[in-house]
């Protein structure tokens, strides 16, 4: 029995720590593939410390965690003292009230706080930008408070109430009694509360995501938008360091407790007490100094006389100067030194739309996809562009003007474009079978097929296969598509999005459909992979375009930024790094020739003859498609 217990304990520990071990090992790996250890290197750590952006985000996260946990500890401790002095009935009531935010799902807390901040900031105070660093700080303090109270409360209850009476009896005012006696008694609870609050703050994503604008971003929020591409190995290095920080913090706390317990048993020597006092004062002074410097930095930092331009883009969708590429934002800021770019990211069109329509943030430039541009135009959420500020628009190819989503070229300037096709593994798939979209329905490859995990793209494929218009609003046609997808369901291994990289590269699946630019990346990593355009049946071609939303504050600077991205040299360098296609042919002169000649990145006119793009569908059709998709792909119970 004892043996069994030990084995179970060991298994649990292994289970808990294996993910961390994998991450730590990956951070020292020379290769980028997490499944294969190629050699030991510290290169990822060097890259991490060269990456000012990532370090800046880490700094933001640490700043918010330290400030929020510090303030929450002070107020939480005071609140606990107050609650403890209430009569028992009221105390119980207040305690359950303070516990609720802890059990509340984060997403509920996040959204309700966000609504409150926008209401107060925008509606009552008339601010243009109500979601800022300060709202983020207030939100973090809010969700940290219960943890502090929860840790301090039991210590207060354990404390002999006559200790404070005794202190007052000996001449202490209530405030002195708190600092000279109560605080010493409850200190272990205060410290563990503070550490808990700090770690909660540091790793919070959900609440932060809803209450912050694009002016101040924390690390978890940024990392979330990295899902478009595989996570860069330097992020593993960052996580390893964060894990070590928490580990050291927890170990230090436990050691302190252990030493305190031991001391309690021994007789104390006076000199040691003095030493302890000096140490405690040192810690207090350091913490206070850090707070003051932090606040000072915050207050002084935005005081520069600069125009701030808020750019809101997909994650990993601009060249950031890694591996001999250019840093587009830095280049822009060099060219226009009076403009300071605040760059933030989203993971998909719908997220961006939700955030924008929620209000309370200032955004000057966004880069949505075609159908989303149409929706934003239809809902009056975009400003007309002043093309006299965008002379580089002249470089944009004729094929990307007068598009379906912006027929009069009033609201948007194309940024990139791309296509959707079939990727398959030549080792397992018979070339004779590769004839069109029906490959994804081929029973021969049962359970080796991957399908789009989003309704629009999945229906698109069914529509091309059945010969319908991809923008059809006919419910009968849509139902037929749903039936086609239902027919495919038993053969599908998984409905996925970004997980496709690993699944195809590791040959877990053999056939899939995805965006051509990303397929290019997968083919580089596994030479057995091949790409196919079902050009007879047709396929989706998408354009992501730069727009200026109505909440814009710096329209002229925004237009300068759009113009800058249309510069052929900048666009060429940018697309080189991203792997997507440029709508500016002149940019190809500055690009890697291999990329320019790729049929995949730049399919010829004849391949594109049947390519179509998605239009904005009426709301009820979008909902119908979504419902049919859920029904068709639902797992068999």
């Amino acid at each position, binding site marked *: 029995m004892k043996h069994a217990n030990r084995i179970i304990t060991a298994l649990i520990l292994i289970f808990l720590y294996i993910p961390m071990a994998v991450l730590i090992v990956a951070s020292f790996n020379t290769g980028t593939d997490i499944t294969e250890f190629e050699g030991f290197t510290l290169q990822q750590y060097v890259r991490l410390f060269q990456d000012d952006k990532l370090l800046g985000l880490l700094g933001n996260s640490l700043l918010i965690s330290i400030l929020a946990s510090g303030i929450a500890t002070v107020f939480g401790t005071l609140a606990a003292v107050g609650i403890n002095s209430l009569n028992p009935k009221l105390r119980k009531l207040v305690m359950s009230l303070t516990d609720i935010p802890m059990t509340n799902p984060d997403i509920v807390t996040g959204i309700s706080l966000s609504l409150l901040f926008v209401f107060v900031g925008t509606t009552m105070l008339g601010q243009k930008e109500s979601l800022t660093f300060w709202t983020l700080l207030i939100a973090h303090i809010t969700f940290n408070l219960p943890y502090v109270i929860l840790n301090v409360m039991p210590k207060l209850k354990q404390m002999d109430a*006559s200790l404070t009476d*005794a202190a007052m009896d*000996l001449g202490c005012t209530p405030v002195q009694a708190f600092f000279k006696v109560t605080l*010493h008694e409850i200190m272990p609870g205060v410290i563990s509360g503070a550490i808990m609050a700090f770690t909660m703050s540091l790793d919070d994503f959900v609440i932060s995501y809803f209450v912050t604008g694009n002016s101040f971003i924390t690390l978890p929020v940024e990392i979330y938008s990295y899902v478009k591409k595989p996570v860069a190995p330097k992020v593993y290095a960052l996580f390893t360091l964060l894990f070590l920080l928490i580990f050291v913090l927890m170990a230090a706390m436990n050691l302190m407790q252990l030493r305190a317990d031991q001391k309690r048993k021994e*007789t104390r020597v006076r000199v040691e*007490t003095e030493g302890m006092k000096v140490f405690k004062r040192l810690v207090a002074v350091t913490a206070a100094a850090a707070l003051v410097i932090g606040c000072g930095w915050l207050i002084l930092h935005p005081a520069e006389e600069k125009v701030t331009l808020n750019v809101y883009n997909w994650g990993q969708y601009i060249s950031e100067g890694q591996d001999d590429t250019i840093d587009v934002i830095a280049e822009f800021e060099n060219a226009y030194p009076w403009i300071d770019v605040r760059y933030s990211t989203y993971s998909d069109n719908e997220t961006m739309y939700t955030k924008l329509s929620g209000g309370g943030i200032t955004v000057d430039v966004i880069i949505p996809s075609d159908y989303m541009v149409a929706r934003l135009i239809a809902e009056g959420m975009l400003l007309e562009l002043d093309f006299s500020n965008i002379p580089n628009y002249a470089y944009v190819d004729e094929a990307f003007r007068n598009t379906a989503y912006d027929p009069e070229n009033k609201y948007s300037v194309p940024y990139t474009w791309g296509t959707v096709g079939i990727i398959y593994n030549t080792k397992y798939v018979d070339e004779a079978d590769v004839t069109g979209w029906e490959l994804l329905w081929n029973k021969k490859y049962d359970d080796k097929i991957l399908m789009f995990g989003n309704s629009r793209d999945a229906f698109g494929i069914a529509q091309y296969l059945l010969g319908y218009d991809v923008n059809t609003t006919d419910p009968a046609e849509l139902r037929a598509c749903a039936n086609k997808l239902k027919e495919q369901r038993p053969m599908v291994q998984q409905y996925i999005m970004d997980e496709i990289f690993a699944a195809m590269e590791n040959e877990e699946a053999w056939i899939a459909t995805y965006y051509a630019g990303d397929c290019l990346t997968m083919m580089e990593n596994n030479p057995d992979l091949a790409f196919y355009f079902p050009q007879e049946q047709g396929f989706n071609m998408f354009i992501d375009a730069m727009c200026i939303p109505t909440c814009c504050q710096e329209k002229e600077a925004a237009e300068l930024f759009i113009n800058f991205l249309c510069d052929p040299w900048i666009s060429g360098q940018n697309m080189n790094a991203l792997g997507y296609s440029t709508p500016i042919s002149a940019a190809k002169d500055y690009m890697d020739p291999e990329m320019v000649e790729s049929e995949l990145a730049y399919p010829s006119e004849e391949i594109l003859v049947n390519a179509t793009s998605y239009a904005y569908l009426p709301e009820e059709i979008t909902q119908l498609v979504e419902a049919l998709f859920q029904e068709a792909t639902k797992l068999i119970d």
Partner: protein
Amino acid sequence: MAKELIRLQDLVMEFDGERILDGINLYFNDHEFLTLLGPSGCGKTTTLRIIGGFLTPTSGKVLFDGKEVNDVPPYQRQVNTVFQRYALFPHLDVYDNIAFGLNVAKVDKQEIHDRVHEMLGIVGLKGYENRRVESLSGGQQQRVAIARALVNRPKVLLLDEPLAALDLRLRKDMQNELKRIQQAMGITFIYVTHDQEEALSMSDTVVVMDKGRIQQIGRPEDIYNEPKNAFVADFIGESNILDGTMLADYKVRFFGRNFECLDKGFAPNEPVDVVIRPEDIDIVPPEQGHLVGTVTSVTFKGLNYDIICEFRGFKWLIQTTDFHPVGATIGILLNPEDIHIMKKSEYSGMFGDYSSYSAEYDELTEDAGNEED
């Protein structure tokens, strides 16, 4: 005449509509050792906490040197308290605990050193300066608590059942110690206890309280010998209390017999309570006794036997050094000085009958007393 220090005027205290103190009038003199004595819930600790400033009375006045101090907080009063469970600060050593009040008052370091060492001498803890308070025994912790209060040279020291947590032997030692310290320091002690023996042996003045009211104030001997009502008679020591009638001055009738006594000043034929202390009763052969009864139980108590004896259906407690077996018929003799007469009160008929007496009775009441507050 000693100088008056503190006066309580018509003190009333209510918690949630429940009346804890019901019109307390009391004064405390300089250099006096005064004890508030009563059972649990009688209001004695509440009275002490009002004097200490931890509670504000619902109505009535607290006067220090003639000035009202109802709203003066504890840290501005010239009193210090020794708490029931000592309330020593666990994060400080013995020296720092004692020096706490002086440090708060920002007294000169050298003076603090001198005064703390002086106190350590007085309470007999020299050499214990740097010990952690948790490493001390109960008695030693109690001494630290006393030193910590006295080092501030208060005019009045409040002690809230300070010996309740100590074992019997230590309690006796500390009683003597406390009395010695009080005399050496020459200050007023206000002492709260439910232990009548403690109260009688240490105090200059005893205040017996029950149900939020003062039942009797007096010197220990007076309280014992001349209890004012059945409650006091029963609470202070053991008493047999009987219904009687005062026929005339020095003449009382009970149990169908006339007895001589030393009391006077009652109306003719006024019904009274008659108190007879168990140790005052002389046992004689049946034929010589005023009353004749049968022994129903005997308990050996060390110094004496507690005998329960039945007289015509009424059971008496008698304390004697001679053994009489159960079932023996004995006679008793009552001298005039053994009989105390009290006016009838709300407590008449509630105490003084030993029909349900058992040896555990004493311990039960003592435990109940310990639970106060």
